[in-house]
């Protein structure tokens, strides 16, 4: 199953995320976010950390999940190398994320994503699986 498809947006960058279940959609989102932001990433090992977030609904939770990962990269200079989602409901995610320090001398930054927005955010069943839509402010 393809993980994502870019959406045409006049000013920014939109993406459809796919998964067989909601967990895969969240993991697709995390992977796509870093693919858009950096070229080449440390393969590990990094440091594992727990991450738990609450949201109002699936859309809000996804925006928060991606927003948290964006903050980790922009403010702390760390990239996601692996993620494991232990629990995911409509309003809560409990995960472990492996993070490695981003070395700008070795790896190239691509797009500067400034924020994960709620604009046109969507998370619903799609065919046999699930699909979400997120627009990034670039």
């Amino acid at each position, binding site marked *: 199953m393809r993980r994502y498809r870019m959406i045409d947006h*006049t000013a920014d960058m939109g993406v459809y995320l796919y998964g067989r279940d909601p967990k895969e959609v969240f993991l697709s989102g995390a992977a796509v976010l870093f693919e858009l932001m950096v070229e080449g990433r440390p393969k590990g090992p990094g440091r594992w950390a727990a991450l738990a977030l609450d949201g109002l609904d699936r859309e809000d939770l996804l925006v928060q999940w991606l927003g948290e990962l964006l903050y980790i990269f922009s403010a702390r200079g760390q990239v996601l190398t692996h993620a494991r989602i232990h629990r995911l409901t409509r309003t809560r995610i409990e995960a472990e994320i492996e993070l490695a320090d981003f070395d700008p001398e070795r790896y190239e*930054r691509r*797009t*500067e994503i*400034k*924020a994960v927005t*709620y*604009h046109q955010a969507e998370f619903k069943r799609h065919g046999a699986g699930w699909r979400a839509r997120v627009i990034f402010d670039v």
Partner: protein
Amino acid sequence: MRVPGLIFADHVLMKDIEQDQCLKQVANVAHLPGILVRSMAMPDVHWGYGFPIGGVAAFDLEEGVISPGGVGYDINCGVRLVTTALTQDEVQPSIRPLLEALYRDIPTGVGAHGALKLSRSEVRRVLEQGSAWVVKQGFGEPADLEHTEEGGAMAGAEAENLSERAVARGLDQVGTLGSGNHFLEIDRVERIYDAKTAEVFGLFEGQVTVFIHCGSRGLGHQVCDDFLKMMMRSKELAQMNLPDRQLASALFSSTLGQRYFSAMAAAANYAWANRQVIMHLARESFQQALGLSPARLRMNLLYDVAHNIAKVETHLVDGRQRRVLVHRKGATRAFPAGHPDVPPAYRAVGQPVIIPGDMGRGSYVLAGEPGAMTESFGSSCHGAGRVLSRKAAKAKARGRSLIEELSQAGVEIRFTGRSTVAEEMPEAYKDVDRVVEVVHQAGLARKVARLKPMAVIKG
């Protein structure tokens, strides 16, 4: 809808405007509580988050809302124009070394770190004092503050209303240009339309000028993000029954509304400090690359305008003057001659309105007109506005050498991001001549000068 919508455009611009969803967004904004008179869009409008980019809306201070989506993620993204005593003929032979010096000296692009590494307490001082604080550290002159909107610092800014995350993101980004559509550009004055105003502004034909376009960087984005989340979770929002989640708002008079306003003001001050430092670095690059003294260069700030902000201003509503909250998202303040908030040096002719176009074709300097006060809550357009998505721009650029095309058009470019040039190609933007003509004919701001790019640095 509580009020009607109004789009400033001509028939050609309307064809593009009708292609994206910005008209629906203008209508959505008209649902917001306390909105006054009309929901408006400038001729460079295109779709954004909640409010369209190019949107203007004013609200009652007691019954109206403040909306982070009506300001934008990049709080006080704005532009300043610097004049010089130099002509194109004097600078052109040295344009490449000058461009290299600017590119070397001004942190540009994704991940760039600023000239100033601040402590948390210093960031807080920048948030509260804006440009004045960095000037005190030696980045510019006190006179620069007189020609900055709000004197480079909005009153009411409270650093304590920013999250620790927002402050952390601001520690090393003062004096950074960023990426995307942010830039520093060397232009020449190609044409003067209003000689008297041009003289007051210190503009002359053939003159070399410098544009700086950037905002509050990661700090501003974090402020917007933090408050959108808080407003989305408020009970008050659930009662507003808004058509778009990104219109999440709070009553301006509420505690949450006031906290956002003061945090927004603080982020706006950060952006002014950012542009002030970049201008100072540009001054030094010019001195070093051209071997000229400050007295010879005479690099003076014409004006600095915000185009993503919310301000409390006095406007005429239903025949009486009253204080209202004006949101400008991708729109520029345009106060006319005589307005007390126009700097004394310009009060006889009106506030300078700086309108960057695209990097190939041109930009403008306008002056605020009385029509802005009656028609658009003292507002004008902010630039050319995108017409192509980044994907469409890259597709259009395939097989072409844009650097070569720009060079043949007399524009030298230095950039960091590989896809930036294609994404920011001139054809990705509306025709700024047409956008400005609408504003001029509508009586919002009048044309003073047209500028043509000579060189640009982009992240």
